[in-house]
């Protein structure tokens, strides 16, 4: 006969196998990116400076830029043109682009600085109606003199007054083309002469 006895086991005895399954809870990091920001903004600042400038212009019909050469001039003639040029050849010697965003009236002036016996009046200029490079049409400003040959002055002389669209003509400006001629009478053969032609763009009449 056996008496029943309460049997107890201690875990450290482990006389029988115990299998314990533990499912480790899955943890996802759900807070690293939160759907909060759906818009961002950027500030912009823009500062506009005054533009009032001149620059030389050349293309296939505007021949010279910094220097206009008269080489091997025949002193027996009363008028000669720069090298490679002829009257009514459809080209211009020099082009000057005037740009402004000031919205105010401006004037284009020219004069020559020479040394005797080459005097300013021996150099001549011819200016026709300028062009608005933004539209390709003629500018709405006014040339001071009708298109013909005029002798240079030794002091700045206005040859063009800006029109309404010339006063704010960015980005491409107003193109003024100038042709030159020389009266070589009184100049010595075998001598070289030089002169400076000065272009001025100004708001002063």
């Amino acid at each position: 006969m056996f008496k029943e006895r309460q049997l107890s086991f201690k875990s450290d005895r482990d006389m029988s196998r115990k299998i314990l399954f533990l499912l480790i809870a899955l943890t996802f990091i759900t807070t690293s990116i939160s759907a909060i920001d759906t818009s961002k903004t950027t500030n912009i600042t823009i500062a506009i400076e005054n533009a009032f400038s001149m620059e030389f212009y050349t293309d296939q019909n505007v021949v010279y830029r910094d220097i206009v050469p008269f080489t091997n001039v025949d002193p027996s003639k009363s008028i000669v043109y720069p090298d490679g040029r002829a009257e009514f050849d459809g080209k211009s010697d020099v082009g000057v682009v005037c740009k402004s965003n000031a919205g105010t009236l401006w004037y284009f002036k020219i004069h020559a600085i020479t040394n005797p016996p080459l005097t300013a009046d021996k150099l001549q200029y011819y200016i026709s109606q300028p062009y608005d490079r933004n539209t390709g049409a003629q500018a709405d400003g006014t040339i001071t003199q009708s298109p013909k040959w005029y002798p240079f002055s030794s002091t700045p002389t206005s040859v063009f007054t800006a029109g309404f669209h010339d006063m704010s003509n960015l980005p491409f400006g107003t193109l003024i083309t100038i042709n030159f001629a020389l009266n070589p009478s009184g100049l010595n053969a075998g001598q070289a002469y030089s002169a400076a032609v000065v272009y001025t763009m100004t708001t002063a009449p």
Partner: protein
Amino acid sequence: MKKLAGILIMAMVIVLATTSAFAVTNLTQSASVTIASVLSIEFATTTDSTFGSGTIPWTSITPDSTVVTPTGHVTSKPDIGLICKYNGAGNWYAKVNLATTTLTGKLSRYISQPTNRNTSTATNGTVTGLDAWTVIPALATTVYASGTNDSLNTPLGTFIGVNFALDPTGLATGSTYTGTITYTITTTP
């Protein structure tokens, strides 16, 4: 003699009883997972963009051009970079607009094909006005619609590089202008 025999028999019975069975127990635990919805937009740092999250300047412009890039613009990286992230269903859209009273129609953006930052490859989403200067409007307008390879793009998102240009014609000289560009990510087309 009989007593001895009785004790011996009991001991044998006890031993047999303790080794006859193996105890097995199971313990289970439930796991619950919640994935947060992600729809976000952030600026790329100045490592990947010129201006980061800062102000974009056009300083001392002499306006003889119709396309003026910001002061400090470089060609090696975009002016700003947008990192857009989404982990939902369907497409997401990036939109841009300009709030201003004086610069309407003057500011343009240029966007090339974005990059999925998870794969470092080009996305197959649609850029409105791809690789072209496009005026930024006043109302939020879609500049990019996600594609099949970046609609779900977490964790790293889609990188959209944006360059800007200003048309200064008609702006008054000696003046300073300001505006605010807003970038939005949305699931609404």
